[in-house]
């Protein structure tokens, strides 16, 4: 089926792009790789008059690894999974991007698009939550940088305001002792969205206790979420079997899953407990 007609512009500066979005109002949309937006256009879920492509704006696809890792919005999942800077600085992000869809989808889909879309079962989002990432957005009032924890507001809703564009993701350096893991569970085929995904980062101390724990979850709430309750149970403690079980149970109790064709809300909650526990056991065994 063909797409509904729209106008397409590729501005050469961010300012110009913001201006087009501001003038276009609700009828203008940013397009990144198109893997989400074009599906919605074909289903007539959106009828924009104008699509704004960002491909001609210099630097929007860069990945830079000095100090903070900075991944610009148009970097594709495939580029990120293969980037030496990402693999050195934030292997958790590379691993999560490697689990997005299929290689062909990863060649198209961009990190900025993934986050701005606000998909609850995003793979990179829980990893970036666990990494303590921040995002930069540019809009009519200029640029602002905000923590990713808080960026996701509700079902497909983000903190992006009118005519704002997500331009970059920043990942702070991890302590040398930090450990991380990413697991994605789906009961359909490999390239499907996660039924539940778990990204976790911990820093084990010399005395065996864990600190700086961050756990990101995908697919088990209207948005990607942090498991703050589970993190608090683990903080400053040794990762005994009992602690890990208690933290996993807390994570499952705190989520607010929606049921769909992959699994009921109840099943997603049960799987949250299982996969959080397994992720934590993996971190303990490293």
């Amino acid at each position: 089926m063909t797409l509904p007609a729209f106008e397409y512009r590729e501005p050469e500066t961010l300012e110009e792009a913001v201006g087009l979005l501001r003038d276009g109002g609700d009828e203008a949309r940013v397009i990144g790789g198109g893997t989400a937006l074009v599906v919605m256009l074909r289903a007539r879920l959106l009828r924009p008059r104008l699509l704004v492509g960002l491909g001609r704006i210099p630097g929007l696809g860069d990945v830079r690894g000095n100090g903070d890792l900075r991944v610009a919005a148009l970097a594709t999942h495939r580029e990120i999974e293969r980037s030496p800077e990402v693999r050195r600085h934030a292997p958790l992000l590379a691993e999560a991007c490697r689990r997005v869809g299929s290689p062909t989808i990863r060649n198209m889909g961009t990190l900025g698009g993934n986050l701005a879309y606000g998909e609850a079962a995003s793979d990179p989002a829980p990893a970036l939550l666990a990494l303590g990432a921040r995002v930069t957005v540019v809009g009519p009032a200029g640029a602002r940088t905000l923590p990713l924890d808080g960026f996701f507001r509700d079902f497909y809703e983000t903190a992006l305001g009118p005519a704002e564009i997500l331009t970059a993701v920043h990942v702070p350096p991890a302590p040398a002792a930090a450990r991380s893991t990413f697991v994605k569970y789906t009961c359909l085929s490999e390239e499907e969205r996660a039924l539940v995904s778990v990204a976790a980062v911990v820093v084990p101390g010399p005395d065996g206790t864990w600190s700086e724990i961050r756990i990101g979850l995908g697919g088990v709430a209207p948005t990607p979420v942090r498991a703050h309750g589970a993190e608090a149970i683990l903080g400053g403690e040794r990762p005994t079997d009992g602690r890990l079980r208690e933290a996993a149970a807390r994570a499952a109790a705190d989520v607010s899953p929606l049921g769909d064709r992959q699994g009921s809300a109840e099943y997603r909650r049960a799987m949250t407990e299982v996969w959080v526990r397994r992720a934590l056991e993996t971190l303990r065994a490293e």
Partner: protein
Amino acid sequence: MTGTALPSTALSVWVNDRLHEMEVPAHWTLLQLLTDALGLGGTKDGCGQGVCGACTALVDGQPVRACLFLAVRARDRRVTTVEGLRANGTLHRLQQAFVDEGAVQCGFCTPGMLLAGAALLAETPHPTEEDVREALVGNLCRCTGYARIVRAVLAAAGPAGVGAP
């Protein structure tokens, strides 16, 4: 119909090593450009949602979903379809391997499989079976059970350490 003009864009794009200069409606997909405008029927219209892989084409050597890829984004880029795999009247070695291994049944998924497989071999001349399965994970085949397709890609690669034919 009203007389509303559809916004369109002048585009130059290389398809199978031929330069095309054309006027393309902004809402056309690469799939429409290939099949409707250029008459290249090898790129298949399957699910229209980026799931099945039947519309796989290469853009600058990388596999994409032509059903999700806006045609205007192919500006000044090099697109390869299954029609472009053959060179000088000879099948690409991967096409020949599909024939030899019996990796084709109804054929609908075959162009997408060939392009995803060719892109893999271009980057990884001697892939493992796992590499092949990962490269083809987004290409659905409802006939073959995949075993012969995977075998064909491995056969086209030849054993590690041996130069590609």
